[in-house]
């Protein structure tokens, strides 16, 4: 329906989290721009792979409106806001109307919270590598690999690595990225 791939929408609680998200998005080829105002002449900016980011104060509904408008016009947004504040609630409410919203480190969508290293490890485990082999292939120490996998287990809320791998595969299947 939409010609371009959907632009990402992130609502995070702190600048540090925003930086993590932005760094990853920059690596993936998005253009970052500070502030939510969108002066571009064309209404639809979906083709320009643009990410607007900034902070929304608790009662700052104007900024929240700008962010929503930018998102509606096809830009990606990364907003630093207290999700329980009035502006945060309203922002998330409207952004959700546009499509999925990634919220901080939680949300049922565990997969987006996995760091690339973890995804790579889980992918390798799913395709039959041992943890040691996967760690070596990803240039990680066994200790680090185990720690990453333990974090993934925790995120998925499962006891065993095998369950984590399967949960990862199932989620990835449900929402191909």
């Amino acid at each position, binding site marked *: 329906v939409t010609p371009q791939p959907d632009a990402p929408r992130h609502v995070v609680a702190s600048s540090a989290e925003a930086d993590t998200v932005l760094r990853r998005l920059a690596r993936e080829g998005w253009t970052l721009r500070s502030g939510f105002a969108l002066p571009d002449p064309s209404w639809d900016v979906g083709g320009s792979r643009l990410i607007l980011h900034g902070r929304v104060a608790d009662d700052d509904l104007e900024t929240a409106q700008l962010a929503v408008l930018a998102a509606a016009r096809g830009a990606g947004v990364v907003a630093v806001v207290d999700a329980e504040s009035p502006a945060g609630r*309203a922002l998330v*409410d409207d952004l959700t109307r*546009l499509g999925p919203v990634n919220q901080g480190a939680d949300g049922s969508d565990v997969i987006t919270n996995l760091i690339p290293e973890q995804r790579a490890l889980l992918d390798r485990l*799913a395709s039959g590598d041992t943890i040691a082999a996967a760690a070596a292939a990803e240039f990680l120490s066994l200790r680090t690999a185990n720690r990453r996998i333990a974090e993934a287990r925790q995120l998925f809320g499962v006891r065993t690595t095998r369950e984590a*791998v399967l949960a990862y595969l199932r989620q990835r299947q449900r929402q191909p990225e």
Partner: protein
Amino acid sequence: VADEPELAARTVLRQGPGLVVLTGPPGCGRSTLLRKIAASVPGPAHLGGGLAMLSSVPALALSRAVRARLPGDDVHLLAEAVRSRVRGGLLVLDDVQHADPATLAALPHLARSCRVLVALRTPHRVADDELRDAATAWLTVPPLEPAAAGALARSTAGGLDDAAVAAVLARAGGNPLAIIALARQAAAGRAPVGEDIDQVAYALATALADLPRAARTALAALGLLGRPARAELLGTGAADLLTAGLVTAEPGGSLLPVSAYVAETAAGLLDGPARAELHARLAELTPPAESARHLAAAGDVAGAYRRALAAADRAAGGERASLLLFACGLAVPADPRVRIAAADAALGAGRPLEAAAVLEPLALVPPSATTVALEAAVLRGEALLQAGHAEAARDAVRPVPDTAAGPVVASRDRVLLLAALSLEPMSALDLADKIAASHPDPLPGIAAALAAVRATHRLPGWEDALSEAAFGPPAPGRHASPGSSSARAASSSGVPGSARVPASAQVAGPARVAGPGRVGDGPDSGGDPLVTRWSAWLLVEHLAADGRLLESAHAAGRAAVSAGEALAYGWQTRFLAAADWALALHGHYLDLPPTSPPGSGPGSLPGSSPVGETDFGALAAAGPAVTPPGLIPAPGAPGLDTSGLDASGLDASGLDASGLHAPGLGAPGLDAAGSGMLEARQSDLVDVDWDGAEGVLRRAANLTDRAVPAEALGYALAATALIEADTGLLAAARARLDRARLDRGRLDRARLDGGRFDSARFDSAGLDRAGSGAAGPGGADAAEADRSGSSRGGAAVPLHPAAAWVARETAWLDGQPDRAVHASGGMPAASGHGFASGSASSGPGPAGSMSGPGPAGSGGLLAGLHAITGQWAAHDLGVPGAAEIPVGLPGAARRTLTAWALGSGFGAAAEGWRPVALREQIRCLIAAGLTETDRDRAVAALLEAERLADRAGLTVLAGRARRGLRRHQIHRDTRSPRSHGRLTQRELDVLRLVADGEPTRRIAGQLGISAETVDTHIRASMRKLGARTRTEAAALAFAAPEARLEPFQPSEDGR
């Protein structure tokens, strides 16, 4: 889902230009349906819609759809600009309630030349007249059907059990948004899942803000009431709610919120004073019992107190107890008489701790020994005794002088005697003689206490004495007490239960009418229900301790019926759970699907000759246990036939009259448990037979998280976990037991907090649920509190004695003999358990020699089972088992332990178990097979064990028998036909468990095969799938898009 509007919309949109409006309340699934229709209608779809914060940006909703800037100031230009872009496509606008005026004005124009599909939420503030005029079709999205709602909850959170799903659905109603949010929240117990629920509450709140004020108040009132209500009660707003699709009309004319959760949210939106005011108004309009709670919530405690007393006068059973306890718990000085009445009712309802607590302020101080105080003292003694605090009970009644009134002295003597029985069983005999002498014509209470002493010491005829105290003297023409030998003869000869009907069936109707208080005593007794129920409980536990499980179940079932008739649900659940436990252990009526032994086809049993089909038949004819199901002595519901049921006052009208069906009334947990239980029993009563494993599991699910006596929970837990463990669901059994340890810790703490557990429960989960959810997220915080409670209560608490044995047995079945070799939790295998009162008795007779109606069952049989499990664990570990045999065991257990000590005689022991417990019979046969030196006889025993276990569905024991058989080179040929590279059913079974993270050992236990076979299956499937690791194999089988789930030739696979 929602087939009708979908079809209608598609039909309209196929025909050419037109406007289809989908409308419905918040969270009803409009957007989902919108997308579904858009995807199924030919032509490109242009998706747009309003945004709440941008509802004043001209033409924004349309700009989103056509991805272009649009002229917002001229409607005709705007419509033309959109039309030129949409052309033959489909224009789809969501959230039109947030659309800007320009978009709204353009829609009628567009509808003339384009196909337009929009969604509009109700309530909304949009002037929709023009839209209505222009609409080709105006469709309302209906609430989800229950089946679809259940499916949605399950697909949202796969791990939820039936009880949790039911709870979610009860609260969410047919509202998909609420279902998803609440199901996620329910599943979040395992991993933190963020605060979707708050965002959902926000979305609902913004929607509800568009309602007119009167309608908002009406919805809030529904939320506070927690039940359907008549439109008159809700005022003028009711009509708006109906229009908005937020409530539906019940057949009777009452209005019912489509989603209770939405109504709660509406109530939560009120601020404190407004809520108090609404409560006050509801209090004027509701019946007294409900009104009292509303008054309390509105802050008028004195009024609430008076209203609760008035309501209690008209209620009976558990309902009356709840009301009186509620009144005494209010912050007003309660009349001592009221306290006594509350304690009396609480005792009658099986809530002794609360009874004792409510009397605490009346503690006896010698100079002020008024009649009331004396009465309170003996009643408190009785309550403490029943709660298992024998010493405290003795202290409570000691100050009562001999000069007090006759009945008071009798009650005192009864408490003293039973306390002594619990604390010093031997001295109780002397005391009993003395008391018998001083009461030549004993009141029922004294008689029951004397019977208890006889029972504890197993003096001849104890069953009859106790049974008489419990059920009254045996009526002529009826078979004697369930404990007596004649009853046993009756059951073994298969006399239908209806032969005993009359006495127990006729009661309830008149009893219910008889008035408050000690209403509806046991049918057969005419005595004090406290005494009769308590005696019945003793009888049940003593019989179980002696291994007379069927009789125990029978007595429990009978007592449950009479407790149910008197609306004493606490006692009823307790008796039902005890009956379930006895029958689960007995094992002959579990009705589990038989497991077929691997390769049971002809010719695959090389050594099967010693035990042939004829043996099977012979076995079926012997013993009371194997009477055909239709003729068994109705253990679940003794002697009630359908006509008796009709007379028994279980009918709905009777319930409504007593106000029991209004969920907002009493402690809601209890009410729900009560009526749920009632429904469950009602169906069971018609069906004379016990409902087997399925019924046990269902009842256990009903009990979870309800305020029921710990005894009931303990027995229900033991029965459920035993069934799960025996059928191979070892992880489930283990999880259940672990959870119970934590819960028990929590429960105990809550009880210690002043013994007002139930009223606390009411406050947080009941009427005021909406109030506590006021902050926004509905009743979310009750669940939250539960969860934090369970994580806080990290310390493991000893389980109920029956559950403690099941925990140990589960460890053994699970292939962890090291965890089963010693009784855990500081529970000495041979003695009691210190569960109720100080009962680590070293006295004679079974360790169940204590008074409180708790513990008797913990002694004999359980001590024997503990010892037997210990022997098995030691055997598996290859270490010598404990040499000593506990005293006072039932015959079968004693013979088994003797056989363990001697290394022979298991055959006879197995015979001894046959009428007692099937699984123990099987275990003895396996033991015989393992210890027997003669190969033929060993094989015969093992084959019989295998057959019995397979037939009864006891997978794990069947696996043990097969393991024994392999030692004698008897192998089952389990090979399927050549599968040519595809997975067999068995390999899939194994892989599924691998994917669930189960270790090999547990997979073996679950499927009743050896760990080596499990490994073989896994290796074979890895080879077939080309997987290098187990994880990869599981991933390929279950997570790959092209999952190869079709097993090879399922029909010929032998399973």
